[in-house]
């Protein structure tokens, strides 16, 4: 069989992982990379167990079973997502009906199916063509690497539901290649089969099956339910699906926190969504009616313009351009915007030009296509105001596990460094009771100011709130009496409350939008006082500021108060629970249960006799493969998250990191195979490899921050090879412990091989989710340190014999 067939299947499987991540981001969750990786590993693990029982039968009919698995991979790849979408899982309902988690389990099972068939292809090839094992590795890994990169490249041109057809094509092509090698007749038979399947699929409409059905609870669905609402522009790309909706009959009137004192109404708006959420608005304004924009001055985001005169403004996150318009309304000296997704700008400069009066044209507005942090690292420009629009928070708190590098302590330090003397940072967030995200952000600003030229943070901060939003102001220089007077005038005229300013009396904190207690003020004062640590410890939400090592600004979950909040959920306390963390824990339980059931249990039940006979050695084998399975995924997932800032987007990080790990871990495994051939029961190589992983992982993570800072502003053509070169040596040695350990087991107790395989598979499935959970609790450095300890334990468990 030509080994190109294996490349085709591997490429398809990896591309499919990436496409699933995009499809789920659109249809349901914000960020599910770890879950999709876990699902894929479950498919691979279950396949290992399946082959350990059915291998001889399947190998006896190799061509047929291989081709069938390749075809099934392609076909199920098309339909699995469509079927998974029909499973009525609603993450918003999980705490009302825990049975919802059963549906999450069903989604796991459905989505793992294509990976199961792909893994069958690879596993069958390894066992049937064992004399060519080195070559198979090579073709498998090259295919996987091409798939990981190709999965991103196709998204520049095609929508994910269209790109899935390429996965189908790869599965069918693999089957065709496999058949052609066995003569013309078999080849024609294969082609005939494929033609029939293709026609059937064309009739079924595979694109229709995979089109993401956006959750009815997402804002885009709500907008489209309005009478006479329609999509007027849409662009899909690797960073998201950008959709613009017009509502001709019922105006959008989107102005969160708008003061009741606003003298004029809102202009006509169109709504922009990214992946069906993150609504921002595009106002119809052609420069003719200045009153039409007055509303922009009656929102808390306008506060900085009352403290600065004709500022040079940088907006981080263009969206629908509301912040740009606000800057324009306030007569800003210059306005620049940074936007990560070029499709947003293409839409604003394309079909909406007439609606916007051309205000986004290149000669009128300077827009930098880059991540906010990358742009700031590469510019020498100074600004008077850096404005972050109210994005990034999901209303249910379900996005708590999404890393976000725009609100970390280091991010604030960068912003302060790019401001001119007297400049301001303004960040607006949705207001939540009791306060949590805003205070966590406040704490991050305090920490950043402490490292900023010996500043007294209490003199540099202010907060103003409406009933819907809260705006935090961070100044490079102490706020003056004039600043404070202006802020007070601004708030009074709009019936907004001041939540904090230097020297503010508590009595001023709760005048217009009255809370039972001035919690925002009390929290701000406590975070600036000597008892800050005690306050953060006693607070029932985690207010410790996010940093680049633990970049979860919207994760405020605390186990300590979870029980109390859970008990209050039916008493009107559901809003106290941020769903991200509980969903993650449930996913972990799910992954552990399913991997035990599908990978481990069959081995124990059907192959248990042989394993039991091995006594203590069995436990050492178990410990070793558990440790390296968990350790591998903890390192891999952490590197994906850590490199997200550097590469600009989680999907880019997944693509580059996965491809590098696959190729170089595979090379490591191939080299390990040669070592095994020389000395099958040698523990020296296995021990050295495991120790090398522990050392390289820790050293690598230590070296990364300065390397990242030095190259942050570089183009992708430099960043991607640097990331690859950084990961490659570690990935190479990480590929060795598994085959080396397996060789030791094969030499000493062959009956334990399925055990080793199964435990490693389980550990991988669990590790993918556990990595995120641990990162949220402890930070990336700690996760990699844990992984290093696991590798050391693995070395000990085999070495200690």
């Amino acid at each position, binding site marked *: 069989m030509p080994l190109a067939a294996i490349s085709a299947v591997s490429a398809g499987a990896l591309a499919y992982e990436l496409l699933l991540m995009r499809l789920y981001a659109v249809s349901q969750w914000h960020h599910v990379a770890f879950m999709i990786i876990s699902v894929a590993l479950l498919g691979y693990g279950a396949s290992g167990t399946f082959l350990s029982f059915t291998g001889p039968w399947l190998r006896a009919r190799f061509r047929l079973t291989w081709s069938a698995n390749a075809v099934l991979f392609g076909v199920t790849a098309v339909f699995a997502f469509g079927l998974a979408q029909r499973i009525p899982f609603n993450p918003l309902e999980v705490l*009302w*009906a825990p049975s919802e988690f059963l549906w999450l389990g069903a989604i796991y099972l459905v989505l793992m199916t294509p990976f199961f068939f792909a893994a069958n292809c690879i596993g069958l090839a390894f066992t049937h063509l064992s004399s060519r094992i080195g070559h198979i590795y090579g073709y498998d890994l090259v295919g996987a690497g091409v798939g990981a990169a190709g999965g991103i490249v196709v998204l520049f041109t095609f929508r994910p539901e269209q790109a899935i057809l390429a996965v189908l094509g790869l599965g069918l092509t693999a089957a065709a290649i496999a058949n052609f090698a066995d003569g013309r007749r078999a080849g024609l038979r294969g082609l005939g089969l494929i033609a029939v399947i293709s026609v059937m699929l064309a009739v079924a409409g595979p694109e229709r099956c995979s089109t993401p059905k956006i959750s009815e609870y997402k804002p885009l669905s709500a907008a489209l339910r309005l009478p006479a609402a329609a999509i007027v522009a849409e662009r899909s790309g690797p960073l998201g699906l950008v959709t613009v909706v017009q509502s001709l009959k019922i105006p959008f009137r989107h102005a969160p926190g708008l003061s*009741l004192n606003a003298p004029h109404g809102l202009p006509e708006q169109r709504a922009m969504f990214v992946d069906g959420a993150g609504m921002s608005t595009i106002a119809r304004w052609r420069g003719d009616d200045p009153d039409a924009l007055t509303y922009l001055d009656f929102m808390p985001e306008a506060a900085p313009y009352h403290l600065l005169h004709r500022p040079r403004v940088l907006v981080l996150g263009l969206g629908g351009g509301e912040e740009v318009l606000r800057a324009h309304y306030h007569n800003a000296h210059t306005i620049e915007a940074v936007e990560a997704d070029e499709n947003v700008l293409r839409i604003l400069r394309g079909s909406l030009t007439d609606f916007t009066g051309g205000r986004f044209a290149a000669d009128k507005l300077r827009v930098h296509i880059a991540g906010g942090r990358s742009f700031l690292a590469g510019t020498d420009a100074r600004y008077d105001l850096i404005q972050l629009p109210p994005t990034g928070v999901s209303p249910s708190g379900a996005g708590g596990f999404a890393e976000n590098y725009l609100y970390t302590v280091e991010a604030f330090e960068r912003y302060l460094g790019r401001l001119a003397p007297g400049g301001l940072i303004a960040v607006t967030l949705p207001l939540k*009771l009791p306060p949590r995200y805003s205070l966590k952000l406040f704490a991050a600003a305090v920490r950043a100011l402490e490292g900023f030229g010996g500043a007294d943070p209490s003199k540099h901060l202010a907060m103003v709130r409406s009933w819907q939003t809260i705006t935090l102001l961070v100044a490079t220089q102490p706020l003056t009496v004039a600043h404070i007077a202006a802020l007070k005038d601004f708030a009074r005229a709009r019936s907004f409350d001041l939540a904090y300013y230097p020297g503010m009396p508590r009595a001023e904190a709760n005048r217009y939008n009255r809370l039972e207690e001035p919690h925002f003020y009390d929290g701000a004062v406590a975070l600036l006082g000597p008892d800050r640590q005690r306050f953060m410890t006693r607070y029932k939400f985690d207010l410790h500021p996010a940093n680049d090592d633990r970049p979860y600004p919207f994760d405020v979950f605390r186990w300590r108060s979870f029980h109390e909040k859970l008990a209050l959920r039916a008493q009107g*306390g559901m809003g106290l629970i941020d769903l991200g963390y509980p969903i993650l824990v449930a996913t972990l339980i799910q992954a552990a249960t399913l991997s035990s059931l599908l990978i481990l249990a069959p081995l124990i039940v059907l192959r248990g006799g042989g394993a039991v006979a091995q006594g203590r050695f069995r436990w050492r084998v178990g410990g070793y493969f558990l440790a390296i399975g968990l350790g591998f995924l903890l390192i891999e997932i952490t590197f994906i998250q850590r490199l997200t800032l550097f590469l600009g987007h989680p999907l880019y990080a997944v693509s580059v990191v996965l491809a590098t790990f696959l190729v170089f871990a595979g090379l490591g495994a191939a080299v390990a195979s040669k070592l095994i051939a020389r000395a099958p029961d040698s523990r020296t190589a296995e021990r050295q490899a495991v120790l090398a992983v522990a050392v390289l992982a820790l050293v690598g993570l230590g070296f990364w921050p300065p390397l990242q800072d030095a190259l942050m502003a570089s183009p992708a053509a430099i960043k991607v090879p640097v990331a690859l070169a950084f990961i490659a040596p570690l990935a190479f040695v990480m590929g060795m412990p598994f085959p080396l350990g397996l060789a030791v087991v094969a030499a000493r107790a062959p009956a334990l091989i399925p055990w080793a395989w199964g435990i490693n598979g389980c550990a991988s499935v669990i590790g993918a989710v556990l990595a995120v959970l641990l990162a949220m609790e402890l930070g990336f450095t700690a996760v990699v340190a844990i992984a290093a300890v696991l590798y050391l334990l693995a070395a000990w468990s085999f070495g200690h014999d």
Partner: protein
Amino acid sequence: MISRRAWLTGALATVPAALAARPPWAAEPNHARQRQRMVAVIEAHARANSSAPLPYPIAWIVLDAMTRVPRHEFVEPRYRDLAYADRPIPIGYGQTISQPYIVALMTNLLNIGSGAKVLEVGTGSGYQAAVLAALDATTYTVEIIAELGEKAADRLQRTGYTSVETRVGDGYYGWPEAAPFDAIIVTAAASHVPPPLVAQLKIGGRVVIPVGPPFTIQQLVMVTKNPDGTTETRQLLPVAFVPLTGDH
């Protein structure tokens, strides 16, 4: 979306139904008992939260109204077995019928008596309007989604709440012909308080807005109109929760 429990219950329910074909009203005593239990749960929640910044206890007229309104008539048939459960229920179109306790809290917060004139923006299932009508309030309700509005109007007619005035349209502008109102409840998502609604509010009247994503109430916003026409806004956490440990 198919409710598994509803399907199972439905399947099981066919057995006794087949044995003795009972008229629909025969189920009513059972629902009445369920409503009594529902109200007992509401009272228990209110008691547990008596230190929350909300009026306590919940007025008996509100509880009495909720004892009378057949909530099961306001949910889709497949969710009927959950109608009196202590939770919000999907009603389609990305909307939910609020948890009974939240309905009681919001109604209580409106602070209305018999004969009050109330506007509801966001009819949804029609249940809240029925509760208001059961309080003898003259109720006007507007729904933006035609299908939901028409269904709710039909349900209100069918269940005898014929005095409720329903309309499909844009609730932003309120119901000027019927203004002024003693109270307005905005259950539709609102990014800001619509000024026309404040204009249609009587002096001393209240606008109540629940804020939060579907299935969750983060806070209740209450806008009161002062005698000079200005407004005062209160933001209320619907639960007794102190964010610092040791401050109970």
